[in-house]
């Protein structure tokens, strides 16, 4: 079975931010393929995770890691002309040259037409449907046979409100054309779930309510192919406020409580991805999954795992275990055979990658790559910063040996991926961090 997530807009991105963390900590078992569709930029944590996952590739297929399949995050560019005003983007002419009788005036207000595209879509679903239509043909939105796909996005915002229905519809159409078998489509839809900041979008509440009604109605009429869906928010009191700036950076965002929208959305996404029991209902409203489903991940357990794995990764890097290991005569007794073999195998690959030239400084290169991936740089978030801050636990050296280190099968290697010692060190570092975080002790 394949698992596909299509995360649309800022809400979809935030759900993926939490979902990917739970996967990395081994709390979600199966790998997934995620596509982010947003007219805005991809949040920093997901950029880091996308690059990190791509560094895990070992075999010829993009999903083939060392001894296990790995996730992929696609971030296709949504082509919107950010330098233009809305009017010019829609009509191809300057706003003041658009005649009074031009059809665009029937669908968009004057206020919308003069708005600059680089300031986002301001919760206007119609705008995203039109300006982003090329995304529907992107290959990253194709599905394989035997796939469960979950579409995640809000029905109140501009991007997801306008793109959700066309993307689901395009997936259905591609399934028909390409004769894809056994594609199950589900959705996590966010209604009104946060208190908007009126300074960003004037009359936001009114607009959100209007969007919610419009999009849910159009989904009901157009997306009969959805097997099931779950709605987050939409009714009841709203006591959640978003912080767009910290979401965009996503540096060490604290984990939300069980009931808060993005954490809940990540749980709902996992539930809908793996659920196999609910029968297909003929009536669309009967396909709605209630929010009392059994949570796939316990938050308390997750917090405990997080603390343990983060401590282990921190100490592995700060104590320079790889460098110590490379200078240790009693290497098996202290660090164990598995880790030694893993580092040695990557060292072998590094030598082969540079045509047999000895790479005597490979352990130092690997250590540098570990630091780079874990701590990041001024421009790029490190993997450590994707997770929330935690208190550290003391870890004995012997615990490193207890990690379930993988073994490299050198017959499966894609040599094109390991062309130099630096590149090999980076991929080895990604595999080591992935193993520590996901498998732990």
């Amino acid at each position: 079975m394949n698992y596909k997530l299509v995360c649309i807009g800022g809400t979809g991105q935030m759900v993926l931010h939490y979902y990917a963390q739970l996967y990395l900590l081994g709390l979600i078992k199966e790998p997934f393929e995620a596509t982010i569709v947003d007219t805005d930029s991809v949040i920093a944590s997901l950029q880091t995770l996308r690059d990190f996952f791509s560094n895990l590739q070992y075999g010829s297929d993009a999903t083939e890691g060392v001894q296990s399949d790995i996730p992929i995050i696609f971030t296709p560019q949504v082509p919107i002309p950010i330098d233009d005003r809305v009017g010019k983007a829609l009509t191809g002419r300057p706003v003041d040259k658009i005649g009074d009788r031009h059809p665009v005036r029937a669908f968009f207000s004057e206020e919308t037409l003069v708005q600059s595209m680089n300031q986002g879509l301001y919760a206007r679903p119609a705008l995203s449907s039109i300006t982003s239509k090329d995304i529907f043909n992107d290959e990253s939105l194709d599905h394989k046979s035997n796939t469960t796909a979950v579409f995640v996005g809000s029905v109140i915002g501009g991007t997801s409100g306008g793109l959700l229905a066309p993307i689901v519809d395009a997936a259905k159409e591609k399934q028909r054309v390409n004769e894809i078998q056994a594609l199950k489509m589900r959705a996590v839809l966010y209604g009104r779930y946060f208190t908007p900041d009126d300074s960003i979008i004037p009359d936001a509440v009114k607009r959100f309510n209007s969007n919610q009604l419009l999009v849910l109605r159009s989904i009901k009429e157009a997306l009969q192919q959805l097997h099931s869906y779950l709605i987050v928010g939409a009714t009841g009191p709203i006591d959640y406020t978003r912080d767009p700036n910290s979401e965009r950076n996503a540096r060490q965002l604290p984990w939300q409580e069980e009931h808060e929208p993005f954490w809940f959305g990540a749980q709902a996404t996992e539930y809908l991805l793996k659920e196999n029991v609910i029968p297909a209902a003929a009536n669309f409203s009967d396909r709605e999954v209630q929010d009392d489903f059994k949570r796939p991940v316990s938050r308390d357990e997750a917090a405990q795992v997080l603390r343990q794995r983060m401590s282990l990764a921190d100490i592995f890097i700060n104590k320079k275990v790889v460098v110590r290991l490379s200078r240790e005569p009693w290497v098996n007794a202290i660090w164990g055979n598995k880790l030694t073999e893993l580092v040695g195998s990557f060292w072998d690959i590094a030598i082969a990658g540079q045509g047999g030239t000895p790479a005597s400084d490979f352990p130092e290169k690997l250590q540098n790559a570990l630091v780079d991936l874990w701590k990041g740089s001024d421009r790029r978030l490190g993997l450590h910063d994707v997770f929330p801050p935690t208190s550290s636990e003391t870890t004995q050296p012997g615990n490193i040996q207890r990690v379930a280190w993988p073994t490299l099968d050198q017959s499966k290697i894609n040599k094109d991926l390991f062309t130099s010692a630096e590149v090999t060190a980076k991929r080895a570092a990604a595999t080591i961090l992935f193993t520590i975080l996901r498998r732990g002790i």
Partner: protein
Amino acid sequence: MFVEAKDGSDGVSSMKKIGKTFHIAAFGYLFVFCCVCLTAYAQSNDGPSRTQCRQWDDSYLFLFNFFLALGLLLPLALNTLLPPVLGRRFWPLTSPRLRLVYMSLFAAVILSTLFVAIPFIMGFGTFIFAGVDQGYFGCETTKFGATGLLFGLVGSGIAAIAQWPAVLALLVGACAVGGLLAFVVSAILVNRVGLPSRVRGIT
């Protein structure tokens, strides 16, 4: 500092610990010096004979040579035995270079305390010094044809007990050389049985 940076251990605290140890050692040796003065003052006018002095000095020198050999070998022995047994429990033992510094320092402190400080505090005639009489302190001023340290290379003609600063320095030096020896052996072993020995480069 160089070794520490290479190994990346928590070097600042290590250096602080070393500095603290040094201060304690300095006070210790000051105390020992005072004891030496008092002991010498306490010697009676009836000094030991030249033959007795020679005999005790030889016994003391034998022990000194033994301790010198220990200083050379102890870091090597510690580096061979401790990491495989306790390395999984203690981080300092997992740092192949820095731990040699710790072990050499440890050996230097233990050997110096045992060989130099104990006689001044507890006196001769007991423990490992059973073959040396308490009256050996009285030989410091006696001319009895002492062999000198390192088979006469250092302080020939002077009683070994009178050369305790040199004894101390030689023991510490032996431990330092022992640390270097352990480093060389460790480097050879790494190439023979460590990670580099398993790397051949696949084609």
